[in-house]
Structure formats: structure tokens, C-alpha cells
């Protein structure tokens, strides 16, 4: 692990552990924008890991961004941090300046309507990638003037409908070689995979800890083989999720990551459903209450696995690309990645 990643890891862990408390998560769910937290995240340079230092970013790689995004998932950070990281990278690849403040991303044509835009109401600007005459273009629009219809996901994170008819385009430019026309979908899936992998990290730690503390029949429930076997399965899915996400982020640094992103969204999404189920089972009734903090992560997992394409969508995409290349190309393809 390089130096920047170690520093980033320390910063995010300290910051999120201190600031992202149960009280903060509850107030965010009630619609309170956690502005102090956003300011702290911005001041610590966590929003622009992929933007060059000359433009005010950290000048890092997707591998560095993974540290931030995965931690944001682990702590259920109620901010459009992943969206801002992706949006600022699109802008930077197109040679555009990233504005300060939260960004979001939306797959929409200029002048259209976008449904379920993450953090639509909170984002000052929306970054759009769209094909114009067959060429991908990146556009930065100010959200302010457009019409917003509020909605939310299971974790009560804003997922709003935005109307872009009146939204002024602040800047637009050709996307650059690494940002394809479906980039919002693709890189949205990439960051959701990492957030889910982080959420699973939390579940495994939480379930293992609870199983050593909670006692029934005169001993910790973790001493029963039935619980041990289930948590071992959780460990396997958590490990697979972390690996699949990391593999996709490495591919993003190399360029041409569509295969790995599809694989990650499929593998991590599957792990998320199974992981949430095992962790709730281990926690019993207390984990089913609003009072216990477990649901802040499990409700996010249930939503995130469906956002930017569910496992089924990405499996079809991946399966078609594999079938197209043919059986004999599979192994050479896997080992070349």
C-alpha cells in the first residue's frame, strides 16, 4: 500500500468514526443535510482524489479513491461523496474545473428529466455524460434552477427527480478517451460496488463482535457451530466483495474496466443480499429495531445493489460479452486482466 493510501485510510477512519454517529445518521434520515460533515470531508481533501493537484485535487488514482469510497460505505456516510468523486473525475477528464460543493451524476440527455438522481436536492451541480453525435460529452449543469421532485431510497438517502429543461449548462466539453457514453452507469456501478464492499466489512465486524458478546444457554452465541458456520459464510462473501471491488478499481486505473465493473456489481450485489441476511439472523430481534444501528448499513446494501444496475442487468451484460468472445477466449481474457 502506498503512502497516500495509508494517509487517506487514517484520515477517513478517524473522521468517519468521530463524526458519523448514530445521531447524525438519524438526523440525515429526517432530511437534515450534514453540512459540518461535508465541510470536514472537503477540507480533508476527500472529495477530489482523482483531480490533479494543479487543479486543487489530490492527484491520486482509483486505487486511492477506493480507500475513501469503501470507508464511506463502511460508515454509511450520508453524503454524495462517491458521486462527487466520480463527477469531479468526469470533469477533470474533460478538462473542466470541478466546482466546490457536492456534486451528483445523472444519466440524462440535456434538456431531459432524470429520475432517482442520488442526492439531487443536495448537490449544487450535476455532472452529465451524454452522447452528442456519437461522441461522449461531459456537461456540468447548475442544479439550482431546475425542478426537483423529492424521493428516497430504503436508507432514506435522497433519490430525486430532476428536470433539466431550465438548468443552465455551466460548462461542457468532449469527454476524453477514458469516459465512454455510458460512464455514469458504469462508474456509478463501480463506486456502489466499493460502498457495498465497505458495508460488508462493517457487517462482518459487527456480527463477529455481537456473537462474542451476546450470551444464550449460558455461553456466547458465537460458540455454537450453527452461528460459526454462518459467519464463516459471511466472511467468504465479504472477502469476495472486497476483492471484486478492488479488482474493478485496479481496472479503472488501467483503463477499459467494463468487464471488471460488471463482475464486481454482480458479485458484490450478491454478497450484499446474503451478508445482510446472515448478519440480521445473527443479531436476532435487537438487530431488527430502529434503535440498533445495524440497519443503517443493511438498508443501504438493499438499495445500493439495485442502483446503477442490479446483479441481473450486469450479469446479462457480462454474459453477452463472454458469449460474444466465445468459450476458447474466456481463459486468455481472464488471465490478461
Amino acid at each position, binding site marked *: 500500500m502506498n503512502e497516500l493510501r495509508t494517509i487517506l485510510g487514517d484520515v477517513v477512519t478517524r473522521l468517519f468514526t468521530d463524526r458519523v454517529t448514530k445521531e447524525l445518521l438519524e438526523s440525515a434520515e429526517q432530511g437534515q443535510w450534514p453540512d459540518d460533515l461535508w465541510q470536514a470531508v472537503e477540507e480533508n481533501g476527500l472529495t477530489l482524489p482523482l483531480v490533479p493537484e494543479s487543479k486543487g485535487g489530490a492527484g491520486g488514482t482509483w486505487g486511492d479513491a477506493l480507500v475513501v469510497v469503501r470507508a464511506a460505505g463502511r460508515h454509511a456516510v450520508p453524503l454524495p461523496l462517491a458521486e462527487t468523486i466520480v463527477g469531479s473525475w468526469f470533469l477533470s477528464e474533460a478538462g473542466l474545473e470541478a466546482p466546490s460543493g457536492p456534486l451528483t451524476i445523472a444519466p440524462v440527455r440535456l434538456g431531459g428529466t432524470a429520475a432517482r438522481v442520488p442526492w439531487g436536492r443536495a448537490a449544487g451541480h450535476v455532472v452529465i455524460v451524454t452522447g452528442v453525435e456519437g461522441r461522449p460529452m461531459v456537461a456540468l449543469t447548475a442544479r439550482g434552477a431546475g425542478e426537483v421532485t423529492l424521493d428516497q431510497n430504503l436508507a432514506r438517502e435522497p433519490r430525486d427527480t430532476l428536470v433539466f429543461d431550465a438548468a443552465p449548462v455551466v460548462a461542457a466539453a468532449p469527454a476524453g478517451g477514458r469516459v465512454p457514453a455510458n460512464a455514469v452507469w458504469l462508474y456509478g456501478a463501480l463506486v456502489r460496488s466499493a460502498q457495498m464492499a465497505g458495508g460488508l466489512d462493517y457487517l462482518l465486524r459487527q456480527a463477529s463482535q455481537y456473537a462474542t458478546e451476546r450470551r444464550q444457554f449460558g455461553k456466547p452465541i458465537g460458540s455454537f457451530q450453527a452461528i*460459526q458456520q454462518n459467519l*464463516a459464510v459471511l466472511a*467468504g462473501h465479504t472477502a469476495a466483495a472486497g476483492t471484486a471491488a*478492488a479488482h474493478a478499481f485496479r481496472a479503472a486505473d488501467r483503463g477499459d474496466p467494463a468487464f471488471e465493473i460488471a463482475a464486481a456489481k454482480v458479485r458484490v450485489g450478491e454478497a450484499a443480499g446474503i451478508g445482510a441476511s446472515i448478519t440480521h439472523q445473527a443479531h436476532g430481534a435487537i438487530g431488527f429495531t430502529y434503535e440498533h444501528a445495524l440497519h443503517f448499513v443493511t438498508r443501504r446494501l438493499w438499495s445500493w445493489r439495485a442502483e446503477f444496475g442490479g446483479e441481473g442487468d450486469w450479469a446479462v451484460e457480462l454474459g453477452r460479452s463472454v*458469449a460474444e468472445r466465445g468459450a476458447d477466449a474466456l481463459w486468455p481474457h481472464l488471465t490478461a486482466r
Partner: protein
Amino acid sequence: MQTFRFELGDLPAEAESLRAEVREFLRRELGDAAPVRRAHSWGGFDREFSRKMGARGWIGMTWPKRYGGHERSALERYVLLEEMLAAGAPVSAHWIADRQSGPLLLRFGTEAQREKFLPAITRGELAFAIGMSEPDSGSDLASLRTRAERVAGGYRVNGTKVWTSNAHLADYMIATFRTHHDPAKKHEGLTQFLVDTKLEGITMSPIIDLAGSHHFNMVVFEDAFVPEDMRVGEEGAGWKQVTTELAFERSGPERYLSSFALLLELIREVGKDPGERAAATVGRLVAHLTTLRQMSLSVALMLQAGENPNLEAAVVKDVGTTFEQEVPEVVHALLGVEPTIDSGSDLQQVLGFLTQRAPSFSLRGGTREILRGIIARGLGLR
């Protein structure tokens, strides 16, 4: 709770250039071998093939040159293994010696044992079997009872080993016997030996598997004499050696590639332009497969870096064997074709073979339940 780590990295250039060489070799040697032959994976036993691999320097390739090895990196060996398994090469005649017996002798054997056995192994001339399980000692391996009593010049052995794969084809067996009995300390008093399979006092009989094949054997020892210089390691050190040996074999590509031949047949079957359901099935399996490869490779990279990723290795085996077992189920669910023995299409035959073979994937080398117990210990639950 012990945390686990799967850091990813790149294979070194020399490993990738070896890959091209291995593929060329396999193309020539396997030609148009039937898919169902390839599906035997590391179960195919072919001494001629093993000798050719030995001639290439591909057995014991990481071992010191003075024992016939080539001092190549563990990552080069990793690439060799995954290429062999992906192609379905018949590696069984040297597999155990290369993976377990040789490394065991390098670690715990005497100089004389290393000089006698290792060079012959690297030439592909010595096949090994492993004598661990007994009729009353499966997962509870430490309860094994086959006795090796000290007599003049060596040990007299009495007892029975079962499920001894390829013992009827092997030249030697690394067997674990009880040299000391204390019911309160069953993990103590175990000792490993190099046993010539042709020794007097050994009787082998086949145990036929559910598909009608002969891999397993029952090996009965009746006053078999094993010379002193065939003991591996100290008396009583057997448990530690056995657990080390089992850890060598947990995370390799053989733990997720056993059903690879069926995935290839599935891809051929669904064609270039599959419907949604078929595409989703293929895509999901490939997502699991590519993730497992990265996990397995990550453990190999850690081993090469001198780390001790025991927990990670156990996780890879559990997740990997679960995947291997799922492939025939998923293919059945999608296509619903009948699995066959020696009629029908390649896909049907591979499906027939793997459907019947799959139950063993989570038994061999330690059951799934034992493995998950090891993982649970890593999580701090026991």
C-alpha cells in the same frame, strides 16, 4: 477478530512469459482431448505426461537446484498450475508430490531423504499418495489409531488407512501413524513416514466411488516394517507437520477450477448471441470465477512475500469449492439437459461427470465444516 486482507497485485513478467510457453506445450500435448477427459482436472493420472513436465523443469520448479529443482518463484509455479488446470491436463501422477510431499520433505525431511526422493520427483518419476484418513478418523484426524511401534531398525505398523487416493498407482505414500498413545493428548504422538507402497505387509483394495471409478483405496498394514530412515521429522511432530501440509493446499487454483470444463461447454452451448436468461447465467458464473481467481492469486502473492495468509487461504477454499459445486447445479437449472456417462453431447458428458464428482469438492483436503470452523476461529468465535 483477526482481519483478513486480499491485496491485489500483478504477476511478474517472467510468470507471464512462462504462461505463453505452457500454453504452447499444452496445445501440443493435449491436442483435441475430449472435454470430458479435460473435466477430470487434477484427477487424470498419466506418467508419460508427468515425465514430459519433469523434462520441462515444471515439477518441483521452486525447489533448490541441488535437489533437481529450478529455484523459480512461487508465482511462476502458480501460473503453471492454473494453466494446467484450465486446460484439464492430466497432472495427477506428480500432483501430490509437487504440491505436498516434496515441500514436506524440504521442510522436515533428512538430507538423505531429500537427496533420494526430490530429484526423482522433479523428473516426474515418483508418484505419491497421502495416508491420513482412517475408518474411524475423518474430520477428527487426530484420533487416528494406526500404530507404528518401535522395533530394531525401524517401526512395525498395524492398522488401516482409507480414501487413499491413487495409492494403487503411487510409488510412495506419506502416511501419518501413531507412535505414542495417550488418550488425553491425541494431538501428540503422531509421526509421519515415507512408506513404499510395495512393502510386505501392505494390502490394498479398491474403494469404488459412486460413479464406478477407482481412485480411493483401503490400505491395510499388517506388521509392515518401515525402516527408521523413512521417518519424516521427529517422533510426535506429526500433527504440526500435517497441519502445515494441509495449509499448502488450501488456496490454489485447484480450489475453484474443478468445474471450469463445464463452464466452457455452457458457453459453447448458449452460442454467440444468447438470450437474457442464458447470458445472465454465464455472466454470473464468470463474475464469481474472475473474483475467485483474484482471491487465489492474492494469497499466492502474499505467500511469495513471505506472509502467512492461513485465514485467507481457508476462505478461498470455502468460497472456491462452493462455486465449483454450484456450476453443475446452475447448468442443470438453465438447460435441463440430461447428464450422461458416455453418450450424448460433450456438455451432457461433462455435466454427468461433474454432477457426480461435485460432492467430493467440499470433502477432500478437509471438509467444509472443518474449514468454516477454522475461519470462525479467525473471526474470534472460538
